């Protein structure tokens, strides 16, 4: 075989390979999008309108993408309108969140906390969000945006996983981002471990921890993690969150006394 023939064959093979790779990638991506679209589009049009109408923006659907949320184990459809991404749970068709594509960030917020509260509670009601949740947090997030958190109460403890977290600019009457968490607290076991006992359990289980290492403790509804040992349990526990002098956190189950997780500050 002549040299030029070999070169021609080599070029043909390389181009075929390239085209195959590009085609496979495109095919995979479009089939995922088509799946999301066929699952949800008919069902969501009016829902999108109901969500976006109170915040005064159009609800024309531009595209739909699938998103497999590994943090919450939800299959999500991300619905793109002109100004927002609206996330819906594929199984329940419930709203998961709305997210502005290009937040304005043009008007510094100067309103009082009371005015911010009035704006967000009014908007919250207009959007038909869960009425049983309580506003537990309202602070400026930065110079332009406020953060408000509405959470469900269980006998004096608030569940951050059954909540609405919203970022907004009252000057522009703008909802920048809003997420609905829908993970109820279902544990029924009694709180049998006191704060002091929780410290003692931590001291027995974790190196370099003793009663003087702990500067604060708070009874909280929280999910465990693998900070101290492997823990795949994703349910919500009533637990003591112990804070060390170094600002590390230790989660001690308030019923069993087991160490179910922890955290630390990255400073």
């Amino acid at each position, binding site marked *: 075989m002549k040299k030029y023939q070999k*070169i021609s064959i080599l070029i043909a093979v390389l181009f075929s390979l390239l085209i195959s790779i590009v085609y496979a990638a495109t095919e995979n991506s479009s089939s995922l999008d088509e799946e999301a679209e066929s699952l949800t589009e008919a069902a969501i049009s009016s829902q999108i309108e109901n969500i976006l109408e109170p915040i005064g923006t159009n609800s024309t659907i531009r595209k739909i993408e699938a998103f497999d949320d590994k943090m919450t184990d939800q299959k999500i459809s991300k619905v793109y309108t002109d100004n927002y991404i609206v996330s819906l749970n594929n199984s329940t068709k419930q709203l998961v969140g709305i997210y502005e594509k290009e937040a304005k960030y043009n008007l510094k917020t100067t309103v009082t906390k009371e005015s911010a509260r009035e704006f967000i509670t009014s908007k919250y009601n207009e959007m038909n969000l869960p009425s049983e949740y309580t506003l537990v947090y309202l602070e400026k997030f930065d110079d332009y945006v406020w953060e408000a958190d509405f959470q469900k109460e269980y006998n004096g403890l608030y569940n951050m996983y059954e909540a609405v977290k919203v970022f907004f600019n009252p000057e522009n009457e703008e909802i920048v981002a809003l997420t609905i968490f829908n993970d109820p607290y279902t544990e029924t076991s009694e709180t049998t471990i006191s704060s002091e006992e929780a410290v003692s359990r931590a001291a027995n289980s974790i190196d370099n921890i003793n009663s003087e290492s702990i500067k604060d403790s708070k009874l909280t509804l929280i999910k465990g993690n693998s900070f101290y040992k492997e823990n795949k349990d994703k349910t919500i526990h009533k637990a003591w969150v112990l804070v060390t002098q170094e600002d590390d956190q230790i989660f001690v189950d308030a019923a069993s006394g087991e160490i179910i997780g922890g955290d630390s500050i990255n400073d």
Partner: protein
Amino acid sequence: MIKSKKIISVILIAVLLVISISTISNASASSKVFGNSQSGYASDCVGYAIYGYNLLGYSVTGSSGQITTSDMLAWIGNTGNGYGMYVHTYGGDGYFNDYYGYSIVDTDISGNWDFVYIDSSYSAASNTLASAFNTIGYTNRCFLGWSNAVTISNACFFNYYLWTCYIGNTTVQSAAVSAASCVPGTGTTPIALYGSTSYYGTAR
């Protein structure tokens, strides 16, 4: 006949050369991500950032483990096409650390950067690092960091949504606030952006 075949071969080779040269001359900006393995979430965060920078069109490489200041300074001092950098580590206002606790401070930093995210507490408490990376005052540059203390699990949660769900679909500013809203808890994600609030983070 032989002569015409030779001409065809020469043309094919020339076309291939032109394609190669144009590909090289239009090579996308590069980015590098670093994860300090003293955080149990380093490899996850590095993986998310690689995914995100790829979406933005960067040619990206990652390193997770016992990262050193010399590794990071080698990247900061690159004279090539490097315009993006992400570091998941420990640090504070105006500095960030390597695995061994040695710090990189603003005076160690030079160059013109498009999209930098230093993922350590207080990295954006002031504009010191954002200014050092020369990301302020341009339409297509920005710096992300934390204005206050953040826990490593909340940072990791935030990073998952930032890099895998929102980046590339919204401005970096909107992606950051959207990801912040996805992290449970109150005041858990004090993310701050310096530079352009309309920049999508796309590679030049």
